């Protein structure tokens, strides 16, 4: 049997996705024999030069994890797209932007300022007395270049065409069972699932979670997970904790809700059919806030209740970059590059 060539490439990664592959252990046995690893820097000292030397589409499957945060990540994405038949966005970052996309309301300048100039511990006496900051190009002595921090942090689709998506922060073994199926099918029959397939559940997380729900869900007081010790049997929403379950795709097995008694933050991305889980959850949460005592609370009271929800962007878009931001940011980037 012909071996298939597999690459694992990365953008702005935290290492979690790599760990999720390493942790698979014996699960990889059925495909170990048939796989030839051509790139995975966590596993061995692979070089980009070697990849560049490959024929176009010589790699069969590339798993790309991490978002596009720097110019280098974009380059890597383009390189692997060119060399791979199937490009898979692996992990929430690569699928939707992930945790790093929380920086999207800020441009690179602001981010650098806040780290190197305005940071809490930065002053004359502190570690960065001279307010130094990294430069993309360094010319004194030996010239050096560093990748440029982009103004945005976007999912893989913002740069290249993606065949499949494996969401999760990081993905879980059940998704690997599905992936292994896909790979074996490909090897044996040459068949691939339709483009755009999301390798995860086909419903919203609530269905998979199945915590007990009261007759109706209203929240008269919003609570952050640390404020109470939630009843492990009952739906977290019904306990006043914002849980993204209803708008999030199933497939994680309720890792947070069932496994850790913590609310879902939405790492599996939008449930099937949902376009913008952030705004949908925002609307749902606003709707059930004080739903039975609206007249009593009155406009002012309702406003106050809503203001107890801190950080709407971070709450509702923790892992998912909304489409309008993607478009906007891309446009900015294009303008910038056309100026040069």
């Amino acid at each position, binding site marked *: 049997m012909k071996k298939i060539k597999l690459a694992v490439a990365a953008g702005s990664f935290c290492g979690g996705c790599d760990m999720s592959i390493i942790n698979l252990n014996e699960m990889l046995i059925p495909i170990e024999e048939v796989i030839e690893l051509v790139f995975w820097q966590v596993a061995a000292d692979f070089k980009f030069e070697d990849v560049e030397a490959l024929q176009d589409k010589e790699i069969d499957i590339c798993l790309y994890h991490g978002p596009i945060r720097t110019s280098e990540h974009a380059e890597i994405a383009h390189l692997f797209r060119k060399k791979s038949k199937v490009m898979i966005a692996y992990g929430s970052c690569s699928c939707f932007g992930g945790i790093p996309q929380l920086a*999207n*309301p*800020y*441009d690179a*300048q*602001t981010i650098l300022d*806040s780290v190197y100039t305005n940071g809490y511990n930065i002053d004359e006496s502190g570690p960065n007395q001279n307010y130094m900051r990294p430069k993309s190009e360094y010319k004194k002595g030996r010239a050096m270049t560093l990748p440029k921090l982009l*103004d945005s942090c976007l999912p893989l689709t913002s740069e290249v065409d993606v065949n499949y998506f494996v969401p999760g922060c990081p993905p879980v073994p059940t998704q690997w069972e599905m992936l292994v199926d896909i790979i074996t099918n490909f090897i044996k029959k040459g068949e691939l699932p339709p483009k755009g397939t999301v390798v995860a559940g086909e419903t919203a997380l609530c269905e998979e979670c199945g915590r007990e729900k009261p007759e109706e869900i209203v929240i008269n007081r919003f609570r952050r997970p640390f404020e109470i010790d939630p009843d492990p049997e009952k739906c977290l929403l019904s306990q006043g904790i914002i849980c993204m379950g209803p708008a999030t795709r199933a497939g994680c097995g309720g890792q947070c809700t069932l496994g850790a008694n913590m609310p879902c933050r939405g790492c599996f991305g939008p449930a099937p059919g949902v*376009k*913008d889980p*952030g*705004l*949908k959850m*925002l*609307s749902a*949460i*606003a*709707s059930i*806030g*004080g*739903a039975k005592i*609206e*007249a009593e609370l*009155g*406009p002012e009271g*309702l*406003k106050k*209740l*809503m*203001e107890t*929800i801190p*950080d*709407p*962007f971070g709450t*509702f878009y923790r892992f998912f970059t*909304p*489409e*309008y*931001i993607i*478009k*906007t*940011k*891309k*446009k*900015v980037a294009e*303008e910038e590059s056309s100026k040069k």
Partner: protein
Amino acid sequence: MSELLNPEPKVIAFLCKWCSSNAADLAGVSRMKYPANVITIVTPCSGRVDPTYIFDALAGGADGVIVAGCHPGECHYVTGNYKTLKRMVLVKELAAQMGIEDERIHLEWISSSEAKKFVKTMTEFIEKLKHLPPNPLRNNRVALEAKH
């Protein structure tokens, strides 16, 4: 007032069929005048206005979005406008976090007899938008200095 930054702003107004849409009709019957920059979309209740629509409009090129409904306690469907009110609090906060001036999103209670208020709301809103730069999302440019 400040500089004229956007002489022809585009506005989408979501009007509740029972109140503000009637106020708009009454403004017409009374031959009041307001700028033609606004396209209205009538919904059964302000509660039908999904926050998604507001961002759809902003991303689609609107410089501002108005949602108008019945006064609190007067919603034809009793509590629809309270839902709107609550959603708008979060929508505005979210917009501000993303660097979209929250003044671009405006909620107003306009009963069916308040034609004057309708005209005033539209006129002043459009006037205000003229003095803001074109919507960052419209130009596909999120303001780069979001607040800390």
